[in-house]
């Protein structure tokens, strides 16, 4: 039992002294997950709004498939990206596997369905009122999408925050495509997993605390913004 307490003490020491290794791991985590969230948002938000207000035949089926992909296990994404990027795979010549970029690609693919699905659901339930207004104002398709994104920006922001939380907290995909290489592809979650298999808890606990803090800060920011609106 003692080692748990020791772990916490050591964790707080690491946090206060701004341990160099901890800092590099935390910053890499944030860089990778932020990039992935931004790319995923740029790609999927306009598309999600477009499909949300569009009326087409198999919309129910489409919704179901979308919601299924929202909960795709991260190891599956990792596996697919690893196969595609490995030396023998179709994009092997790019030498991307076990790099930071591979991690960004994997996390982007992981959260695209999440941002898409959440925004799609949002637009489906609240988009048609805005669409009708846009229509009476004589807006074209693109203007309508922009207007809806503007009107729903707070909720979309919450969606983006959710996607970021998913990205920064997943371990399966980054472990497979990153390889947890010290100083290159080691992020918070892979470190925690590795420290556990090494039986070395302090760093793992420190990173766990930071991970929770990051989530707390992001969600506080979003919700304070939400109330002002």
């Amino acid at each position, binding site marked *: 039992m003692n080692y748990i307490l020791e772990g916490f003490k050591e964790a707080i020491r690491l946090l206060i002294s701004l341990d160099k290794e901890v800092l590099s791991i935390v910053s890499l985590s944030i860089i990778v997950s932020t990039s992935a969230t931004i790319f995923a948002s740029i790609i999927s938000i306009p598309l999600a709004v477009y499909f949300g207000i569009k009326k087409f035949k198999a919309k129910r089926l489409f919704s179901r498939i979308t919601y299924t992909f929202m909960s795709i296990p991260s190891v599956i994404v990792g596996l697919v990206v690893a196969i595609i990027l490995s030396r*023998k795979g179709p994009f092997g010549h790019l030498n991307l596997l*076990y790099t930071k970029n591979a991690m960004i690609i994997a996390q982007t693919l992981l959260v695209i369905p999440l941002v898409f699905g959440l925004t799609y659901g949002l637009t489906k339930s609240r988009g048609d009122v805005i669409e009708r207004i846009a229509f009476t104002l004589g807006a074209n398709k693109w203007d309508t999408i922009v207007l809806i994104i503007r009107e729903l920006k707070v909720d979309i922001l919450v969606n983006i925050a959710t996607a970021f939380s998913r990205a920064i907290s997943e371990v399966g995909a980054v472990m497979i495509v990153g390889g*947890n290489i010290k*100083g290159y592809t080691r992020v918070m979650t892979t470190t925690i997993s*590795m420290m556990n*298999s090494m*039986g*070395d808890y302090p760093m793992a606990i420190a990173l766990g605390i930071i991970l929770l803090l990051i989530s707390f800060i992001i969600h506080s920011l979003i919700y304070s913004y939400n109330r002002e609106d």
Partner: protein
Amino acid sequence: MKKISILLLIFLLIFTTACTKNVETPTNTGQVEETQDETSQEQVEAKGSIILSTTTSTQDSGLLDFLLPIFTEETGIEVKTIAVGTGKALQMGRDGEADVLLVHSKADEIKFVEEGYGTERRDVMYNDYILVGPKDDPLNLKTDYPNNILEGLKRIAEKEAVFVSRGDDSGTHKKELSIWKTANIEPSGAWYLEAGAGMGDVLKITSEKQGYTISDRGTYLSMRDVLDLEIIIEGDENLFNQYGVIPVNPEKNPHVNIDAAIEFMNWITSDRVQDLIKEFGVEEYGQPLFIPNAK
């Protein structure tokens, strides 16, 4: 709609529990039938199961999948294997989370027993490590130092060729570090990658980066088809690796299943099982992966 889904969920839960029960009962009766030539039935229940904490290399090479079913069949003891690095395996022993250990870091193991966490330690077998690297071997290590790991590592460090280290405090990682130490080199720099991952992952990383790494022979052989790597240096005495078995001391952790743990130790060091170990891998790779040497 909501009600229906809740009902469905409840139904599903009941169904799955019912299923597991259904599955369990026949196996139980099956076991009883198997051991019907008696006296053993009560023993089977009393012995129960043990947790074997071992290293990823014994698990990944398939040795345990080969041995443990035989052990369970002969003794009625179920073995739950947890494959982790040697550091974690020893820690599990200290915390009483395992009943018996099969690990390979001799100095740490002796310390473990001296500190009273294990009752005793016996040699089981050894395997050897190899240095693997790119097939075209840009440093010409294979021609210059086919059996000299120390000179090989010196050249890798000098030329700053990519070297992937396990970096996970496992037995293999400790072994690698001790060889660097013997060679009087402190590896660091952009060429020295610390993966913090298991052997299989490290081999894949090495193959992708076309670098060098030290691997156990078994994991390399079982994966060589998917790797762009070749054995570069082998047969150096510095590369040999001894495995030991240790029952966890019940004095420190009373819930340890010591009888079954000792039975496992006696079993794996018996002549018959030692012969089995020697046969393992010969059919598939043309060479044994582990050389038994229990006394």
